[in-house]
């Protein structure tokens, strides 16, 4: 045993109150650690590029376009359970060269009698491609407010980083629309 612990009983050991205090502090620290897992989880996913989340708006820079290959980019829209909006993509898929900026549009309308706020949450598959998706403008960056009966085209301007691994030939960008009324800004 290499544990540095008292090797015999009550005479030589630490004071019980010291041990107890350390353990209480350890418990409080672990409570904090539970909350620290929230940012750590995002940091780890971003570092490892593993959960398909895409980064926020980037500056539009003209970059080298890799015309030697063509990537098929597919778009999927989903309504979260109970979200009544009509939400669809206007292009099922586009074929682009990595590095080229592309604009596509999505359509959303609010068929209800109430003004509503929606939030689209993006996901990219395969998840390893997520870090190569560059967006200068996306309806998913902001909450979308639609009045009762209102409909709107929503733009997405993006490119794929030319460093995208060669074996990725198809990228699927999926958007799930949530009712964000509870979180309206």
């Amino acid at each position, binding site marked *: 045993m290499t544990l540095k612990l*008292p090797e015999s*009983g009550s*005479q030589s050991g630490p004071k*019980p109150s010291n041990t107890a205090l350390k353990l209480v502090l350890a*418990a409080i620290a*672990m409570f904090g650690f*539970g909350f620290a897992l*929230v940012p750590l*989880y995002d940091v780890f996913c971003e570092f490892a590029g593993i959960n398909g989340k895409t980064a926020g708006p980037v500056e539009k820079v003209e970059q080298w376009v890799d015309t030697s290959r063509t990537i098929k980019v597919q778009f999927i829209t989903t309504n979260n359970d109970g979200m009544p909006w009509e939400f669809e993509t206007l292009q099922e898929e586009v074929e682009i060269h990595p590095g080229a900026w592309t604009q596509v549009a999505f359509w959303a309308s609010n068929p209800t009698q109430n003004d509503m706020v929606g939030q689209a949450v993006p996901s990219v598959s395969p998840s390893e491609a997520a870090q190569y998706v560059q967006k200068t403008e996306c309806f998913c960056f902001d909450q979308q407010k639609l009045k009762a009966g209102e409909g709107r085209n929503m733009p997405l301007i993006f490119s794929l980083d030319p460093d995208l691994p060669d074996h990725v030939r198809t990228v699927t960008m999926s958007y799930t629309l949530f009712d964000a009324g509870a979180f309206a800004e």
Partner: protein
Amino acid sequence: MTTATASHDDHADHGHHGPAKGIMRWVLTTNHKDIGTMYLWFSLTMLFIGGTMALIVRAELFQPGMQLIEPEFYNQMTTMHGLIMVFGAIMPAFVGLANWMVPLMIGAPDMALPRMNNWSFWILPFAFGMLLFTLFTDAGAPNFGWTFYAPLSTTYAPSSVTYFIFGVHMMGISSIMGAINIIVTILNLRAPGMTLMKMPLFVWTWFITAYLLVAVMPVLAGVVTMMLMDIHFGTSFFDAAGGGDPVLFQHVFWFFGHPEVYIMILPAFGIVSQIIPTFARKPLFGYASMVYATSSIAFLSFIVWAHHMFTVGMPLQAELFFMYATMLIAIPTGVKVFNWVSTMFRGSMTFETPMLFALAFVVLFTIGGFSGLMLAIAPADFQYHDTYFVVAHFHYVLVPGALFGIIAGVYYWLPKWTGHYVNETLGKFHFWMSFIGVNVTFFPMHFVGLAGMPRRIPDYALQFADFNAIATVGAFIFGLSQLVFLFILIKTIRGGEQATDKVWEGAEGLEWTIPSPAPYHTFAEAPHVK
């Protein structure tokens, strides 16, 4: 027991007094034996409440279709059964055994923090009172499964979820205080000569378990606090609409949840490691390797949590890491099983009731361990996930595992507590009924699980009917035979053959040097351990 200890104290002439009279003895007590007794009765009560819920579930599943209860109530029953058995029956029973036996095994006069000990027990009835009372509210009890995955437990939860959250907070505080008390007692109050590597294995396994509790119960408190904030204070930890992530819930929950399953089994390892040498009349084989194996299991328990969520959509590398890390646990666990078997090898074995339960533990826990290895195989888990195979697996490790370990410990130490031997005929009857009942209940669940029967659903396809009917019959055999256990407990407390101090012929350790029944105060002067 009360009269015996009181008469002992009448003779005591050096100032310390015996137990007070009446109910206030139990409310105000700081005596480790009183508190241990209360923990054990509390967990037995919870075992019967949670067991009744399990029988309601099994009765509904006796035949396909909806027979007895509404699906909503079925969900409440499965949820409450899990919560009560995990937090109300298994965990407090181990704390009760630790309260009784750790001071006696290390030669300490009491627990190190006796007033906190009283408090950590008395929080529990209120925590579970609050949880159980939700059954009688209009909203009904929690119905989202004992793992309470968000958003089912936040956005879609019944309004009673807030009581559930505060109940979990309270039982968490109780567990943390109990664990701190056990660590401080072990570190500070060992008798002279009782070095760490001389400690009985029950003390060692509890020592490690207590560290696990201090490390992960606060994380559980954190995750329910996040739920509370999502529900009432407009945060969105787990709500994607506000920028949160439901998968985050599963990661944080299982970071607590996997060490939790070892919290529920390590003390049972310790109990079995006390019992087998006693009845094999040989010292435990590989004492030091048992200590290291337990420590390894505790360490590994922190890096395997995502094997509960293989199907959630993880990258391949993560699945491989968690699969191999999980399989690694089989090595220290295998060391333990090997040591138990080697202890028995060429021993002079006898088969009293505690030994029978300990032997059943070794065999049936190993079955549960093997089904766990099957579940650890990530590609296979996609087939097994959320089926009755999982139910069969964790009931094999928790019922003939943790619960049999507790029952074995109670039979082993009951003569020391009460001064009376257990009637062996009744004890063996209880054992065989439990052994048959538990296998008839849970073994068929492997088959229906592999065939694809999903868990947590009150109805099922016709082809699963026969195995479910068998399982229900087994559940009632097992449940009713626990009434035999209650009868034996009461009968042994009230009378029986007088136990010797040593109780068992092959018993070794400080707890067997004091009189039977154990006096109200023991080891006021520390014994010397050679």
